């Protein structure tokens, strides 16, 4: 079971002080949060991707590569990578590069993005969102799995004799999750390819999550990747904890009441009942988290949102400390009664082992006319 955090990268005023951090502060805070996540023993740090204020999560690949250089062990991921408005050719290059730089500590989660105006900024149309997600991802897979790609589609310039570089590390592409809240087609896509499916889970009633995960598991089996129980499921989660549960509620309420997503809507009490948000003691967070299995089955990855709604960095780091304290209990809880058929989340190491060991898949270019390889020519010139 992988347990980690995911960040949206919002720059939000702290409602208790009225102070808004600068972009610079927030960007540096993100790095601190990721480093501390590793220090407290978490397995995954995932960043969102937004191309508009008030977010600092544009260029997620630079962020992940930088965090990769500052950490040793934690898996770097995305939540989500915009497969609709980002050229799949760039995604193929960028994440293969991060694989090499971090020795395989990267995977990614595909998402569509629901901010209409962002699409035309990248020459796209949100009404084609689903079709873009489907066609672009189909191309991305080929760019990672085939050395030379000839391709023609609806949304992008055709490719002739194209080789995406660098080739994936050890000949194994990064593992891919597909994230969607309410689009059955995305659960279908994840199932078709035998990829992972991630449900955001937070901000939504359990029924939404269950319906999507059930569909994904059913179709995963239908497409012959294994039994429904063997499908790869991830969930979001959201908490605020203090040793004293009433102190947690008192401290978090102003952040909740003014939060960008749900603020000025339902009460904290109604929302914690309706969604996975848990505000209380570490024990309450532990018990609530372990109850998610009751409606999605044994799953592989749990990511928490901890740095949003204007919470100051100090508070976020304290939340990570508290999460670190209950982490051994949480791991023990997830292991207890876990079906022996439920797999662990794929990692680079497990995917390499499955592929029969590492393969160097470096492509050495050959000149069409002379048949010379580029490096031979370089040797001749230097000789």
């Amino acid at each position, binding site marked *: 079971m992988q347990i980690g955090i995911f960040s949206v990268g919002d720059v939000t005023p702290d409602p208790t002080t009225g102070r808004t951090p600068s972009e610079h502060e927030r960007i540096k805070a993100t790095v601190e949060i990721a480093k501390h996540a590793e220090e407290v023993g978490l397995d995954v740090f995932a960043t969102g991707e937004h191309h508009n204020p008030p977010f600092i999560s544009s260029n997620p690949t630079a962020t992940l590569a930088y965090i990769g250089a500052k950490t040793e062990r934690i898996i770097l991921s995305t939540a989500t990578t915009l497969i609709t408005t980002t050229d799949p050719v760039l995604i193929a290059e960028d994440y293969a590069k991060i694989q090499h730089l971090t020795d395989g500590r990267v995977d990614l989660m595909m998402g569509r993005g629901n901010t209409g105006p962002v699409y035309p900024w990248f020459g796209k149309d949100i009404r084609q969102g689903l079709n873009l997600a489907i066609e672009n991802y189909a191309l991305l897979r080929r760019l990672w799995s085939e050395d030379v790609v000839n391709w023609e589609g609806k949304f992008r310039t055709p490719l002739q004799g194209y080789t995406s570089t660098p080739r994936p590390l050890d000949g194994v592409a990064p593992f891919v999750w597909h994230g969607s809240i309410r689009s059955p087609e995305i659960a279908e896509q994840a199932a078709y390819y035998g990829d992972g499916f991630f449900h955001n889970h937070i901000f939504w009633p359990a029924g939404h999550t269950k319906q999507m995960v059930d569909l994904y598991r059913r179709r995963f089996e239908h497409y012959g990747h294994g039994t429904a129980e063997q499908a790869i499921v991830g969930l979001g989660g959201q908490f605020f904890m203090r040793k004293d549960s009433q102190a947690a509620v008192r401290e978090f309420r102003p952040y909740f009441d003014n939060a960008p997503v749900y603020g000025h*809507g339902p009460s904290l009490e109604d929302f914690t009942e309706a969604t996975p948000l848990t505000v209380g003691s570490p024990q309450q967070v532990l018990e609530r988290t372990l109850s998610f299995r009751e409606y999605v089955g044994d799953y592989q990855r749990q990511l928490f949102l901890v740095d949003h709604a204007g919470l100051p960095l100090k508070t976020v780091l304290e939340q990570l400390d508290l999460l670190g304290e209950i982490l051994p209990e949480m791991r023990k809880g997830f292991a207890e009664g876990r079906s022996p058929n439920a797999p662990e989340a794929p990692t680079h190491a497990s995917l390499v082992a499955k592929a029969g060991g590492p393969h160097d898949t470096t492509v050495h270019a050959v000149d069409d006319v002379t048949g010379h390889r580029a490096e031979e020519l370089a040797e001749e010139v230097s000789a």
Partner: protein
Amino acid sequence: MTTRIVVVSAGLSNPSSTRLLADRLAAATTEALEEVELTQVELRDLAHELTDHLLTGFPAPALAAAIAAVREADGLVVVTPVFSASYSGLFKTFFDVLEAGTLDGKPVLVAATAGTARHSLVLDHALRPLFAYLRAIVVPTGVFAATDDFGDTGLQQRIEQAAGELAALAGKVQSTGAARARRTVEDEFSEPTPFEQLLRNASGR
């Protein structure tokens, strides 16, 4: 065969003239059908949950139940007070949060109340376009009641005329199994479009 009729009423006072008109329409529709399962949706009781839905994107339990009843209804009676020359904001909000396709092909009786008969065209200039957009089938007779109509026998005639039209359509819809032109999210969950088809759709082939 039981016909499921849902009455959506957006009156604010208690009792409201909107509620009174809704009750009379419900009674007349029940009278015109053999077996009726009648569900009343009083939007005033759902006002907080409707606002929360706008902000959170999902319905709390009571609103979810009302939406489900509307989705499964064979026919609807919808009644709004006239506010600022149109249906009320509360009324509109309920139809704003329905998922696309919910009202496709569904027979709807539109009705409104106001202080004066000068607002009577609100049925044809506001409610009919709204339900046309939602691809519902609006029955030919709409029922408008100004305050003084409640003392007039003509109102009851119009109520019975409209209820009869709704009953005829709602019964028919049930026997033919309602034409649902658009696939809804619910359809995708119960019978997903195979991915090969989605791939072909994506590239327009």
